[in-house]
């Protein structure tokens, strides 16, 4: 292994150590599935490794791969009816809201998670999802309208 490769290797491992848990949590909020979340994060780092030297800021890149993979996985499973979400926090208000979040269309859920968990501005979410900012805002409105109506 060359010195450059060793440094690169070290760098990606540092990022992995620092960011893996946060990214798994993000993936879980997007998918609601623990095992899948770990797989998505692993896949994201696998995608990043080959072009690590070209990635200026790894975290947005990794987020984008994870969101894309989560959406892709959801679409591939569209034939299967969604299972009733299980309580995860055993706080009734939290678990009920979480269940409703999982029932949102995956695109809307992704916007909600990126906005309110990652605290990303809509312009950044639009860039991450490769969609117009106004469309992302529309998705956010629809999601909030749905949640407001159901949770009221």
């Amino acid at each position, binding site marked *: 292994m060359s010195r450059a490769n060793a440094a690169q290797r070290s760098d990606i*491992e540092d990022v992995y150590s620092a960011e893996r*848990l946060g990214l*798994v*949590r993000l993936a*879980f909020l997007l998918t609601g599935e*623990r095992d899948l979340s*770990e797989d998505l994060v*692993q896949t994201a*780092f*696998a*995608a*990043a*490794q080959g*072009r690590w030297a070209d990635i*200026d*800021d790894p975290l947005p*890149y990794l987020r984008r*791969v994870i969101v*894309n*993979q989560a*959406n*892709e996985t959801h*679409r591939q499973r*569209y034939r299967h009816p969604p299972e009733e979400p299980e309580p*995860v*926090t055993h706080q*009734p*208000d*939290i678990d*009920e809201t*979480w269940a409703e*979040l999982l029932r949102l*269309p995956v695109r809307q859920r992704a916007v*909600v998670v990126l*906005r*309110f*968990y990652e605290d*990303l*501005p*809509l*312009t*950044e979410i639009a*860039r*991450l999802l490769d969609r*117009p*900012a*106004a*469309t992302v*805002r*529309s998705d*956010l*409105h*629809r999601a*909030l*309208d*749905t*949640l*407001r109506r159901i*949770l*009221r």
Partner: protein
Amino acid sequence: MNPLDIMNDDLDAELATHLRRTLRAVAGTIDDAEPGDAAAPLARVGSSSPTSSPSDDEPPPPAAQRWRRARRGRPSGRSPRRAGLRVRIAVAGAAAAVALVGLILIQPPGTDDQRAWAADVVEVARVAPRLLVTADGWTVERVDEFDLEHGEITWATGDPTRVTSTSLDASGELAVEEVSTPGQREFTIVWTADDNEAGYPTYAEELAQLSERAERLPDMTIAGHEAAVFQTDPSPIVIALWKEGDYGIGIGGDVADLDEFRDVAASIEVVDVDTWLSALPPDVVRPADRADTVDEMLADIPLPAGFDPSSLVSEGGASEPYHLGARVTGAVACAWFDQWKAATAAGDTAAADEAVQAMATSHDWAVLHEMEAEGGWSEVVWEVADAMAEGGTIDNGAGPVPAADFAVAGLGCSNS
């Protein structure tokens, strides 16, 4: 259970707070003590190949996503063409999601009972498939594209009530906006020429994507053609495709259920030119009024040296106020953006500053505020202005976004 007892004006702020609390609490259930989590090394790096990484060889987006993009007038897979008014409108439509393509209706004085359509509009109507939804209760909601290569007409039904919704905008401020009620359903008819240059998915491309990704339902006969029918998503998005001459026809129903889709699809009829055009939204700004309207729009907008607004008056095309506003403000914004880009590259600080300051006034341009309620064009102009003011990029904490991203993709400015 009533997790949100929100009955006051701070509804969205409280909802946002509740969502943040929920997401953090749920995320907190994932920790390194979870079985299978703590021991997860970077083991699979190099051993798997993702299918959705953001790379140049990224596969085309799935059919449902491409369909939605196409419905919003945004070609996928290839870059949209530069400069053509149609494409500029398409970008505006993508940003706005509610924009209309205006059709020029030339109505000479004293001929109230007769409608003479502009030649280019008639040409589209003569060549493109003329399909109308005739089901009771369905009316044309918008025309996002109207061209020989590609067209998109959306019908809607259901509760048309507009309600006010507030939400957090990009800067974290609460924004108030009118939104459709969930009771409204939409049905879109799209035609795409096989040899279209704008990058819209052709019939063959669309069919291949849907066949791979979506559930195939029994074929239907629509307007005399055998159509392949797909359901693409758990939400009730149903798509039917068929081939008609040199065009691929797609219909997409964001409808209540498959039965409603079948009913509406069965109501589609092929009609003559005049019937078809008469069913579509007419123009608002007549050609004779265009010069005055452009002047009015430009009244509070600083123009760069050498900018000639006469072409905005003389050119034909769409004349609905929103689109004319997009055309006018886009031309000015791109001219300032071009000056800023060239001046920055040349180290001409004064010229660059002039452009930045001129674009900063865009937040006060009356036409943009008038357009704001209709769609997202104004927001894109302001994003370009803000990016220029902040040194060329907007950095929201997750990496810089170049001003050019907004200017080229959002406004149709030159990328050269």
